[in-house]
């Protein structure tokens, strides 16, 4: 079934690439979105079922897939706006759409892949397509960023592969030749801890490039700087979820053994360092998209901490990564609008936005509140749960340290955002020349509102899914 989806997707993207016609592109992308929707629905109906050997519709995969669907809809919408407002050749647009479709497809296969190797291959593939998209604007900076992203991700993927090999070493000793997760589960108890540790260490380090976690978080930041806003929205949400999933899968295997405590400590170290890095780097920030990128680093660090702490931390981590996806995407769409006014992402150029575009300003304010995990944002609930978990597990000092860092992040983040919103009116900008339709902002409001709603009053099915997703951990 899912194979069919892949085939359709590949066909669509190839035909877009070769036909290079706006209308056809639109139609085909709509078709693709419908198929994406239908495959996700299909997955929802066939919970926990193995599909075509290497794929499985498990709870976490479906949750993230739904996030992917929602964000794909909005991203296609905003990509359309983005491409309208910049003058690109039809060829470029075709490349843009075809690679975007391929990116979504590969990400979906990464979500649903039940075999470590397949997941690894799909993640490898995402690197290729996303770097094409990063390079979309064909500027020097975009070239540099794309190169960095491509190279460092490849190194990361190579490292991850080493981890996979280590895993297979102990697996093969138990007579498991394929790397299907459910097989690995069965033998996980009897795996040799030393190899598991090596495997986890390398996979964590490797996929940290994707997840945007310390140590390989650096290139994701550069990618955000130059990528088109809709793509940045993707890189820092669904693609990071892909990396998270990669780490999460191996973590679930380890969770069956007593290596778990070691693994959790490693995750805590990585998480703390990530939050610390973003806290200190945000003090020097000069560019709005980089600022958002570093905040993604912070949130990924918190997610890692959530996994590392355990207990309700698991639940909170999943909750957090989902909420973060929505909020961060909304912010990137909005910063795209801001760019319409100021033609720049540099902090020094951008100020007094609230006067120019009040509705956009409101959405930025709402996004700020949400991303800083200030109530009523749902992220507050998840962060609160993580802190609670820290205290329950007697990680008091970690909790205090993290809270201090978060305060510093709030300071530098809000300082820059309020510089964007308020401050001296810029007379040189002709507002009437810019046609921002207020309705473009609706998608952001919907995303933020969704986060608030899911945080304050999550529907039963949502919580059940998350609970089911983490049952393997405890």
């Amino acid at each position, binding site marked *: 079934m899912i194979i069919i989806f892949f085939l359709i997707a590949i066909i669509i993207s190839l035909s877009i690439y070769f036909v290079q016609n706006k209308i056809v592109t639109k139609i085909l992308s709509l078709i693709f979105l419908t198929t994406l929707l239908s495959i996700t629905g299909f997955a929802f109906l066939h919970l926990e079922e193995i599909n075509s050997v290497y794929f499985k519709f498990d709870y976490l995969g479906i949750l993230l897939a739904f996030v992917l669907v929602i964000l794909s809809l909005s991203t296609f919408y905003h990509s359309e706006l983005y491409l309208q407002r910049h003058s690109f050749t039809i060829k470029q647009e075709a490349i843009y759409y075809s690679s975007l479709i391929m990116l979504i497809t590969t990400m979906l296969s990464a979500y649903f892949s039940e075999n470590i190797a397949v997941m690894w291959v799909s993640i490898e593939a995402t690197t290729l397509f996303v770097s094409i998209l990063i390079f979309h604007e064909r500027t020097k900076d975009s070239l540099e960023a794309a190169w960095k992203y491509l190279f460092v991700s490849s190194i990361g993927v190579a490292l991850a592969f080493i981890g996979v090999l280590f895993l297979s070493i102990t697996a093969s000793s138990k007579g498991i030749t394929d790397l299907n997760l459910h097989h690995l589960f069965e033998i996980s108890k009897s795996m040799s801890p030393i190899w598991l540790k090596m495997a986890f260490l390398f996979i964590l380090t490797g996929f940290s490039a994707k997840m945007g976690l310390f140590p390989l978080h650096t290139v994701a930041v550069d990618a955000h700087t130059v990528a088109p806003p809709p793509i940045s929205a993707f890189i820092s949400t669904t693609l990071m979820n892909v990396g998270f999933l990669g780490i999460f899968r191996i973590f679930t295997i380890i969770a069956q053994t007593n290596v778990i405590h070691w693994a959790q*400590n490693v995750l805590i170290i990585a998480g703390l360092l990530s939050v610390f890095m973003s806290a200190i780097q945000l003090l020097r920030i000069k560019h709005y998209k980089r600022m958002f990128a570093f905040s993604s680093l912070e949130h990924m660090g918190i997610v890692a901490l959530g996994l590392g702490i355990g207990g309700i931390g698991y639940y909170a981590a999943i909750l957090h990564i989902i909420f973060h996806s929505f909020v961060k995407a909304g912010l990137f769409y909005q910063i795209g609008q801001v760019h319409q006014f100021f033609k720049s992402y540099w902090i020094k150029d951008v100020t007094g936005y609230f006067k120019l575009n*009040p509705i956009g300003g409101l959405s930025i304010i709402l996004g700020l*509140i949400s991303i800083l995990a200030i109530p009523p944002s749902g992220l507050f609930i998840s962060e*609160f749960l993580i802190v609670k978990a820290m205290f329950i597990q007697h990680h008091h000092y970690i909790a205090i340290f993290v809270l201090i860092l978060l305060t510093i992040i709030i300071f530098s983040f809000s300082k820059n955002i*309020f510089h964007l919103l308020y401050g001296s009116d810029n007379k040189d900008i002709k507002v009437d020349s810019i046609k921002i339709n207020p309705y473009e902002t609706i998608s952001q409001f919907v995303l933020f509102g969704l986060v608030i709603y899911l945080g304050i009053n999550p529907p039963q099915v949502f919580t059940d899914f998350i609970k089911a997703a983490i049952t393997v951990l405890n």
Partner: protein
Amino acid sequence: MIIVLFKIAILLSFILFFLHKNIQYYVELILQTAIILITSSWAIKVLISTTKLSIAFIPFLGKTLNIEIDQLSAFFILVINFTSLTGIIYAKGYLRSYFTKKGKIEMAWHFFNFLWLHISMLLVVMLRDALAFLVIWEIMSMSSFFLVIFESEKTETVKIGIKYLIQMHIGVVFLMVAFILAYVQSGAEFSFDGLSVYFASHNPFWLFILFFIGFGIKAGFIPLHSWLPHAHPAAPSHVSGVMSGVMIKMGIYGILRVLLYIHHDLFNIGIFILVISLVSGVIGVSLAIVQHDVKKLLAYHSIENIGIIGIGIGLGTIGLAENIPILAVLGFGGGILHILNHSLFKSLLFYTAGSVYKQTHTRNIEQLGGLIKKMPKTALFFLLGALAISGLPPFNGFISEFLIYSGMFKSLHSAGLFTDVIILFSFAGLAIIGGLALFCFTKVFSIIFLGTARSSRVEQVTEVDSSMLIPNFMIGFMIILIGFVPILFMQPLSQIIALFTIDTKEIALIIPTLNKISLSSGIFILFIGIIWLLRSWQQKQQIIKHSATWGCGYTGANPALHQYTATSYADNFVQLSSKLVNVKKAFNDFDETEIFPRSREFETHSSDIFEDNLISKPSNILLKLFYKIAVFQTGKIQHYILYAFVFLTVIFLLTYFNLI
């Protein structure tokens, strides 16, 4: 069902964004009035029928969230409603000048936040579930933050706003940690009621300190106050009126609410509260004296009054601990009554100061003077507020201070040695605070309203229009009512006190005294009236001449040149307490080569030593340090790879040596 109306009113707040500029205000007014009516009806019901109210509100994280109103909540609901009402009425006139500058959405955003500040304050006192409380608490901070930065054209305002935001966040972090610790160590439900389980089995002191810091930042106890003197001046006056009038009281509410659950080892807590409050009172008012910005001055006075409230609460707590009912009753009684009183006269003062600012466009009192002739009503209301806040009879400020005093004096004999010494210091402190307040408000009133103009700003000033005077009349009425017939408020007060201590018969004992006070106040007014009549009768026969103020024979220059300024008025106090208030004088002295001296400027700046040394310096050091070490995003690929390599090796080694 009334709760439904309440929900509808809350939901309707979002309509504001879709309305036209001119009707936004009225819709806001209607919504707020509706909310006021609804909540007040609940509060009054609770206060009349001495029961508690519990209503299902909304689903929250799977559970249903209840609105719970006991006497304490009811009292605060009424206070909040009254001040918010006056605030919104005052806002109409005050905001008129901004209508042209601000866009539709901006105005809507302002009104939305004002409404939500009101709603969130109400919910803060009505919710018990800890998580919901934290959420609504932070919403309160956020909405007030956006109200503070209303005049966001000034970058200074936004800076101040961010400082405020950060400190509020630190406060909520403390609260969160406190709640979590209680939850983790007691395993009870995650709410205020769960605290009682913890306090029953543990030593309450340290957890209470956490709560106190969390709430104290909002209340503005020294040294947690440093946001307050900046935020209040920056905010528009109707906002600072509401913020200073009721929002900072939410901190007091929290402290009282937590105290409700502590039943043992109260003595240290009482001492702690009392000491902090005395410090806040004395230092707050001392710093107030040296301010030239009228709203900043009033902000420091809020700190002082929070101190007085704290003194009452602290004494009450000690009374509970030492089992001296009279001290408990009158301490809490005075403290809680002072919450109401301060909300009244502080908002009155902020509104009148705001009117002055609106007409003269300056907050620096050194440029004002003689305004009583230009805006007499405002002046008289300011005088009323000044007398009341100085705790002078026959106004309301005196009543609450009197309760605290008589509590102290009555319990002197029965209390132990240590308590006696504490009480000694408390009433000495209270007396000093009273004296300093008198000093301060004689200064600020006479510099703003009396004498002659100190700058040209004052010339074209006229009285503000009636819509900005209505709230003053309302508040003035309340002030005088409490001042003259305090017994009206004793019955509800006794119910609130009953939450803290069982035997409230002392409150009955105080009734005759209060009657006597009302009588004396009556006689006082009577005397004034009679003598006034006598004089006007006497002056009918005599000739009344008008001539310039006696100037030691010299009448040439403009009297404004040699009349007293705020600086010179405060000077002899500044000399006394130079260490504390550290006023810096900027003046370049004459050098002997200078035969014909050029014109010179003389100006003084006061700085808050607590803010400088406890807040600003440490945080700046930390930020500088972090800024220095933030060098990891070098832009060179090989460094990026290096991080991964180092990470791998470090983890590997740690694992190898079994460190993790």
